[in-house]
């Protein structure tokens, strides 16, 4: 195997994760830094550091011309897009193809078909995969949306055709709220994805968000690595995920059924990389295809922890046409349980983003914790970037053990200088219905864990925090 030069078109924790995998396989990891992030901590794991001029995402990580210039100048063999940015952009794939550079992801047709909600829904129907009732194509106006909504019945969900990660999605309970929300979704869709297209569909009550990890290559192998449950969401964005799903639980038939359904869809689009088929599952255990994410996902580590499969190394091997580490479906087994908490720079109560600068950071974790993050003392969390700065992942023998471990880890995670949602995770992991595994995507709204976040700890802690600053001042004077 000849070492390849792999360019990572991303930043933060996922750039670190990709660089680790590229280096492990003996390749050269090439990373970017930008004018807005000269201290890009992900470069620690990159062999070569390239400057992308500019500060905004449009000037840098979304700037195909500048990226392609780097690719030519630095003799890049392959590109890993991470998640977000250019990870599901077929124009970028096409340009890489023209430049004879490998895109570490699926073939562009799969991205196009699965990236467009209307097309993917149609594909799923044809492959015999159940879909949620709704509009068959883009809805142009609030009036047209109202017609469809009336047909399938309220509540309905409005979502951006090109969306993902919960951005550009809104639930509408009745006709009177439809118009205002339709406008908002179109605006968000345009600003976030550059595509104002909107779909309308039936909203499933008490639903579970359950997704299946796919791992496929160019040689016709299409494996699944079982499911994840991602029902703990705020504003349609996942904040806690776990594998396996507590709702599926011991129902191995249901597990096999949802996993093989996902494989069926992946095979239908000749899928050839790591990807995720997302389903919504109702109280009655019926499930419907939501969308397929044709990239590595934020929550991939929980699957890695319970199966022992390294998704990133396999994904790179698949793209380079090398044999994957995984040879058969039978090799992939679940052992134990894993939970991931997304650590975000946001207010723990309002859950609104809160940028700022980290000025103190310590981890004191139990055994069995993995922390994928880009945090360091001095990190500036900017409004341009996703507020997610780390993923705290616990693995253990069973679900109760993992909850105990993650709670221990949250107690030992100290991030100073910015607001974080660590305290919210502490409340959720201590809460009874979560501990019993009885929750739906309505969890945050119904249980309102944010109301139990302690507003302010004792005055004692205030003294200690102030002393921590004083200690630093003393040490600086002494040159320690």
């Amino acid at each position: 195997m000849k070492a390849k030069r792999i360019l990572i078109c991303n930043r933060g924790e996922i750039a670190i994760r990709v660089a680790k995998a590229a280096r492990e396989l003996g390749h050269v990891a090439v990373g970017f830094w930008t004018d807005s992030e000269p201290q890009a901590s992900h470069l620690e794991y990159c062999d070569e550091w390239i400057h992308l001029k500019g500060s905004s995402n449009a000037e840098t990580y979304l700037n195909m011309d500048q990226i392609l210039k780097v690719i030519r100048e630095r003799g890049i063999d392959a590109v890993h897009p991470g998640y977000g940015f250019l990870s599901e952009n077929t124009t970028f794939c096409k340009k890489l193809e023209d430049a004879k550079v490998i895109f570490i992801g699926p073939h562009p047709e799969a991205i196009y078909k699965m990236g467009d909600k209307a097309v993917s829904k149609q594909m799923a129907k044809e492959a015999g995969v159940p879909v949620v009732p709704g509009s068959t194509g883009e809805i142009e106006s609030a009036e047209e949306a109202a017609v469809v909504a009336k047909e399938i019945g309220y509540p309905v969900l409005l979502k951006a055709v090109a969306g993902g990660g919960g951005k550009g999605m809104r639930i509408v309970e009745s006709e009177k709220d439809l118009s205002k929300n339709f406008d908002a979704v179109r605006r968000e869709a345009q600003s976030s994805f550059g595509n104002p297209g909107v779909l309308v569909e039936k909203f499933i009550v008490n639903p579970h968000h359950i997704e299946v990890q796919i791992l496929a290559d160019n040689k016709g192998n299409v494996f699944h690595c079982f499911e994840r449950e991602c029902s703990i969401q705020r504003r349609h964005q996942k904040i806690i995920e776990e594998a396996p799903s507590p709702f599926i639980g011991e129902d191995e038939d249901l597990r096999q059924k949802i996993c093989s359904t996902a494989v069926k869809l992946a095979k239908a689009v000749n899928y050839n990389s790591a990807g995720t088929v997302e389903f919504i599952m109702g109280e009655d255990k019926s499930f419907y295809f939501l969308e397929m994410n044709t990239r590595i996902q934020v929550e991939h580590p929980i699957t890695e922890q319970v199966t022992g499969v390294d998704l990133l190394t396999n994904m790179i091997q698949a793209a380079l046409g090398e044999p994957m580490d995984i040879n058969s479906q039978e090799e992939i087994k679940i052992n134990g349980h894993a939970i991931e908490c997304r650590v975000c720079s946001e207010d723990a109560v309002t859950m609104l983003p809160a940028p700022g600068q980290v000025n103190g950071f310590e981890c004191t974790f139990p055994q069995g914790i993995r922390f994928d993050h880009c945090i360091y003392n001095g990190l500036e969390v900017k409004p341009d970037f996703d507020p997610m700065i780390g993923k705290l992942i616990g693995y253990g023998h069973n679900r109760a053990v993992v909850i105990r471990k993650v709670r221990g880890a949250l107690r030992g995670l100290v991030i100073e200088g910015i607001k974080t949602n660590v305290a919210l995770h502490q409340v959720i992991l201590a809460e009874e219905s979560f501990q019993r595994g009885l929750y739906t995507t309505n969890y945050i709204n119904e249980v309102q864990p944010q109301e139990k976040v302690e507003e302010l700890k004792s005055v004692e802690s205030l003294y200690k925090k102030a002393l921590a600053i004083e200690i630093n001042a003393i040490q600086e004077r002494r040159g320690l």
Partner: protein
Amino acid sequence: MRYYIINAEGKEVYFDVSTGKQTRDGAVGFEVKTESDGTKNYYMKSLAGKNYISQDMISWEKAPKISNNKGVVNINESLNVYRGFKPSGLGQGSAGTLVTDMPGKVVKLLTAEGAMVQQGDTLLILEAMKMENEIKAGVDGVVKIVNVKEGQNLDSGHLMIEIEE
């Protein structure tokens, strides 16, 4: 040395800190004096490159290095800690004074000077960190000042709207 700790809701805690002597096993003593709690003694020790704080030299707690001069620390909510002095001009807007707490862009302005508003009315939509945030009136009253335009990029701490009750 006097510390002021001022939190997001304008609460203020202040106390005196003085450095005591180095103890035999490498710990440094601190005296913290407050009006409510009187004087308390704390000890600091560095161990293998990390800092710890104790009150009895037996139970120790990690004290992360706080590295910047602004001294913002985080006790679930973020607090501004001012070392040794109270800066001038600090204060918290009333519920009728809407100030940005992060940089953002005005997507939509939904009110105008002179408008009558009720508590909870959305006055403008601010896009920050890729999210649309509805900025709402904190009180009933009349809009006195509108200091923003649609499409305007705002820094943190910008007075957007003032409402007279």
